[in-house]
């Protein structure tokens, strides 16, 4: 597994600065949580790493080399909305197979699809289904299997549970933890939900108005926050005492 590092990355659209000098490192086999509210630039950071957002300053390196932004990326992304991230006209198997490197033969392809589906706890028979027949949680698992099919060095998970119902959110989070344990994946896990990040991430970065305001081990950042904004986020995530 590899190290993904953002070095003083800035993204600007005209006069509007989305990311301002962001430096962050996803160490090998580690899960880094990235939290912050909508519009703070969380998703833009991930999109910049795969060439979907233009980097106006700084560098994004994978093991010291610039991350390629053409062809099959060694960094794969899983998107927020599982209803938009799967082509409604392609079967689950076709979707997963498309991301595989080197165009394997039919037999090898089917075996690999079955292996990946098993990895994300889906029945191999699902390979023949269209996404319309799957629930949100199942779709998100297919999206994860597609990302794994490309044999990535690092996975970027962009709010992958926020469009899901609570009953399936848990299953996806368990899967993320299993995969980190079994495959040793490096992952940037983006979420606005502190409880979710706490559950999966080794360390946490807090992004506010395009800048990282706090970074450290999860227990430390959430247990003893130093920045006022982190404390504000934590307060918002804890239950209201006065009305209960």
């Amino acid at each position, binding site marked *: 597994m590899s190290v993904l590092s953002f070095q003083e990355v800035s993204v600007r659209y005209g006069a509007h600065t989305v990311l301002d000098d962001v430096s962050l490192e996803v160490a090998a086999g580690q899960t880094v949580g990235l939290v912050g509210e909508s519009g703070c630039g969380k998703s833009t950071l991930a999109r910049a790493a795969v060439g979907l957002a233009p980097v106006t300053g700084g560098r994004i390196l994978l093991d010291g080399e610039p991350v390629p932004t053409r*062809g099959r990326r060694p960094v794969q992304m899983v998107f927020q909305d599982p209803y938009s991230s799967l082509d409604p006209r392609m079967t689950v198997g076709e979707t997963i197979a498309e991301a595989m490197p080197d165009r394997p033969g039919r037999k090898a392809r089917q075996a690999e699809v079955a292996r990946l589906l098993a990895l994300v706890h889906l029945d191999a028979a699902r390979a023949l289904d269209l996404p319309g027949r799957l629930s949100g949680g199942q779709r998100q698992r297919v999206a994860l299997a597609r990302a794994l099919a490309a044999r990535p060095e690092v996975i970027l998970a962009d709010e992958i549970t926020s469009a899901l119902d609570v009953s399936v959110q848990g299953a996806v989070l368990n899967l993320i933890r299993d995969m980190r344990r079994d495959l040793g994946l490096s992952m940037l896990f983006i979420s606005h939900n502190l409880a979710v990040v706490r559950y999966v991430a080794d360390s946490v970065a807090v992004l506010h108005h395009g800048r990282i305001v706090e970074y450290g081990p999860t227990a430390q950042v959430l247990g003893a926050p130093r920045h006022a904004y982190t404390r*504000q986020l934590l307060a918002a995530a804890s239950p209201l005492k006065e009305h209960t």
Partner: protein
Amino acid sequence: MRPVGVAGFGLLAVVVSVAAFGPVLWGDQATVVDTGNLLAGPSAEHWIGTDNLGRDLFARVLVAARLSILLALAATAISLVLGIILGAAPILVGRRLGRLITSAVNVLVAFPGLLLVLFFAVIFGVGARGAALAVGLAGAPAFARLCHTLVAAVSERDYIAAARIAGVSRLRVLRRHVLPNIAEPLIVNATMAAGGVLLTFAGLSFLGLGVQAPSYDWGKLMQDGLNGIYVHPLAALGPGIAVVLAGLAFNLTGEAFAAAPNRTFSLGGPRDPAGVTAPVPGAILSVDDLRVTIPGPAGPIHAVRGITFTVEPGEAVGVVGESGSGKSVTALAVAGLLEPPVRVEANHLVVAGEDLTAAGAHRRLGTSLAVVFQDPMTSFNPAHRVGPQLAEVSRFHQGMSRKAAFARAVDRLRAVRIGEPERRARQYPFEFSGGMRQRAMIGMGLMGNPRLIIADEPTTALDVTVQRQILELLAEVRRDTGAALLLISHDVSVVTDVCDRVLVMYAGRVVEELPAKDLRTLARHPYTRALVAAVPDLETDLDRPLAVIPGLPVDPTLSPAGCAFAPRCPLADDHCRAVAPELLAGVACHRSGS
């Protein structure tokens, strides 16, 4: 299928078979020269007369169908293919060059189509091939524009981004992901365009720029017949009628295609009125056996399957459940916002003393009911300033003057803690942040004297730090006005924070009803317990996997015989699968004791 579709397909079948078999069946008859019958009028032998060589015109109209239709289809195909290539340019050649091509297409679209046709017809020269190319090229910009719009919509989908990240080539993205997803509207439009192209062709041949003798299409026949229009009008009108019929066939078929995806099954007439019951005395909201049915493409969807509950004055009741549980539909039904074809039935549905199942009740309800929706962006009219939108409530319901109502709006914006309310009242909704819009929405509810506030996922679209402020505002409003609150949410923690009592919904039924403070610890229904356990909080044990609910939510078009949760329930037995449990003493479960 609707009559328009039947007529369209029927007509198209006739036109196509005439085009296919016409020259075989009537080819000889159309070339027989009858020197004794030159330029004759209609007779039993020649239905619409003969031409200057005495050939039967009716046979010639039938034979001309093949050439006319083929030319129209060829030109449409040219337009379509060129249009797809030009419209998909941003994907194929990159953003910068793509933008240039799109601009060029936009300029071409501005030219009148007929002008382009004549321009190209002159360039390509007279004759069938030149005309087909001219009509095809002239139609391309319109298709390119349509295609560009469709491609742009699909390009924003994440699956296109995912394919690019996976290294799929541009051509393959276009072929595998884009074209299949835009094919439907393109085919519909091409079918309709074919009708128009047919007409254009007839026009070109009529002007002498199209098909040349000895070949003939409908336009050429019209041109020939024109000389004698005052003597034998049918000679020119006959091919004209053929053009109209074939054009109609294409257009009606296209219409039928376009309408097809929207078909739904009707629910039939209303059922027998259920037994009307009296509302619970003193309750601000009393609902008995509420059932909501929505027509869907695969049969009626039973969104709410009979729920009974009350809300006391000043009380805050939460409704939790996952998507598809019927919680939002319940809110809409209580707010009186569901209209036919959605069917709302209840033994009674009484809000503040008005039975909403009776006609006109909603208007009599006036401002005693306030509603706050999930997305504050769509609940305001973007074209009007915020203040006047709030003021409208008081002008309509309380008959206030414009000035007094506006003053009240400013006062209410202040009450929901919007800074500088006088200035804000004169701003448009887009100048407000999401949290402020939601505050203004609550402010709108406070224009009157609400006795019940229905809030449907009021914080879901907001950031966590803002969510908290909105919940606190709702609690404050309740304290100040004494209004009751019906809060719909998928978020267990939001409901436990704000509410006194919680209804847990699953598959259109209330499965458990309990005090909010007991939700995390004393829930008895297996679904409630699983729902609470599945959500991680800041105290969740990190060493154990999260609880999950196996299986899938119930298909809302089916009506399970037993307990709807039984297929996913670890405690379910045969009795659960056979007999639906009633809501007794706050829980609808046969196994709640175990």
